[in-house]
């Protein structure tokens, strides 16, 4: 606990000082956005556009590249409580490739497919963030929705799908609809888990929640109110399934904690912060579900 507080303080310090004397070591304008790589002593960050700290996509400490700096990457790890041994993993939205690198270390036998729409981001991840690829770790420069549709046609399946394609500034609206989630659900294996890292504000929060519930039933979530960041964890067969609940036992939590503490992830804490919407639904029941026909996510996501 003390360790995580110290690292939090350290992180806070580093972030604050970012404002003061960060050094931009790479900058480019891609088809989709401005990409910046900033160095601040030991901390290296990938930023999209320049305005706020909210657009930081990925950060790592050069002296401890394995340590997960970002809160949400840690939050995402909570999903492993439900499926401890994912063999095939799909990551939509690469960022600096931190998630892929961490999972590759944790599960060297697993196959990881990274989908990133922006080829420039892939290049920056390779050049500045030590993003690793191999015959088991592949990257595709493609729209996530198209990749998933084509993967379904090829009868592929994944044990863990991670949706990390949203950032504070812009939401790809076709990746937040009922139809899309149904496609993603169909791509999950029997015990498959889908985790989404999202930034929902005000009205969108309710619409997004209603949409996930319409497709997957009740789900778990971990929220971080500070920057409206939340992780949604859903399962192909819902969470009423006993096998899944059984995996949430003390033994599994301890085991996972042992493996993940090295990466700066506090699994028991995450477990305590996880909320099941079954008893804690915080949006109105009659909220309109987002569909391909009705998907004004960005218009709804205003402060």
């Amino acid at each position: 606990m003390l360790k995580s507080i110290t690292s939090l303080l350290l992180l806070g310090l580093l972030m604050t000082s970012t404002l003061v004397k960060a050094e931009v070591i790479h900058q480019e304008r891609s088809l989709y956005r401005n990409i910046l790589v900033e160095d601040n002593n030991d901390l290296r960050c990938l930023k999209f556009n320049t305005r706020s700290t909210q657009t930081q996509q990925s950060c790592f400490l050069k002296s401890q590249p394995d340590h997960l700096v970002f809160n949400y990457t840690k939050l995402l790890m909570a999903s492993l409580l439900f499926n401890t041994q994912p063999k095939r993993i799909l990551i939509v939205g690469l960022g600096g490739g931190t998630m892929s690198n961490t999972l590759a270390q944790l599960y060297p036998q697993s196959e990881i497919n990274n989908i990133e729409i922006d080829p420039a981001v892939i290049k920056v991840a390779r050049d500045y963030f030590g993003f690793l690829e191999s015959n088991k770790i592949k990257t595709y420069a493609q729209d996530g929705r198209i990749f998933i549709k084509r993967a379904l046609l090829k009868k592929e399946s994944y044990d863990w799908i991670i949706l990390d394609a949203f950032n504070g500034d812009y939401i790809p609206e076709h990746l937040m609809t009922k139809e899309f989630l149904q496609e993603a659900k169909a791509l999950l294996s029997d015990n498959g888990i889908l985790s989404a890292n999202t930034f929902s504000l005000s009205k969108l929060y309710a619409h997004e929640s209603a949409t996930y519930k319409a497709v997957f039933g009740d789900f778990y979530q971990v929220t971080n109110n500070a920057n409206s960041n939340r992780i949604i964890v859903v399962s192909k067969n819902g969470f009423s399934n006993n096998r899944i609940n059984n995996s949430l036992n003390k033994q599994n939590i301890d085991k996972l904690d042992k493996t993940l503490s090295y990466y700066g992830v506090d699994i028991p804490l995450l477990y305590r912060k996880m909320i099941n919407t079954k008893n804690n639904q915080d949006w109105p029941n009659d909220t309109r579900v987002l569909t391909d026909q009705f998907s004004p996510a960005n218009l709804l996501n205003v402060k």
Partner: protein
Amino acid sequence: MEKNYPNILIYLLAFTSGFSIMGIELLGGRILAPFFGSSVHIWGSIITVFMLSLSLGYLLGGKLSTRSPSLSIYGQIFFIAAIMVLPIALFGQWLMETVFLNVEDSRYGSLLASMVLFFIPTVILGMLSPYSVRLLVTNSDESGQVAGKLYFVSTLGSALGTIVTSFYLILWFDINTIIYSFSGILASLGLLAILVHKLQPSTKIENNYA
């Protein structure tokens, strides 16, 4: 010159066609996204198809206006446009799925899908511009001014169609509801034009040239 109600009607119709063209173009991006993504090439495909169809529409509309032009034919073009817009909502899903299954590259997929969905209605909507000029111009001296006024009205319609659709309509309605509404408005105005023509059989535009 007496107050010419058919002329006001023609401007109103031109405004509406401009409004619908851009409204539909804007929806195009959202219609295609589930199958072809939201990359920049989607807009490349859509804008290409709209520009291409409008250019052909102008050519055909101009040609058609040389053969006994009338408010009734004008109204009929609107009515046909209204019908041709419907397949976007009725068969769009099936058409895009077919294209998606047959074309792997999403650039050409989106181009083909845009072509299949938007080409015909946009050609027909494009025909209305030169046809409107023909109906409004009574002597060659004022032809430039009339054309200017008409472009002003129809392009203003386009501007409004863009902003209203992207700011409000998509926030309130399903895409298909918006398409059906455009179709309904185009059809009603087309019928109104035909009706006005029937009620004023004396309005012979082709004899007005000095």
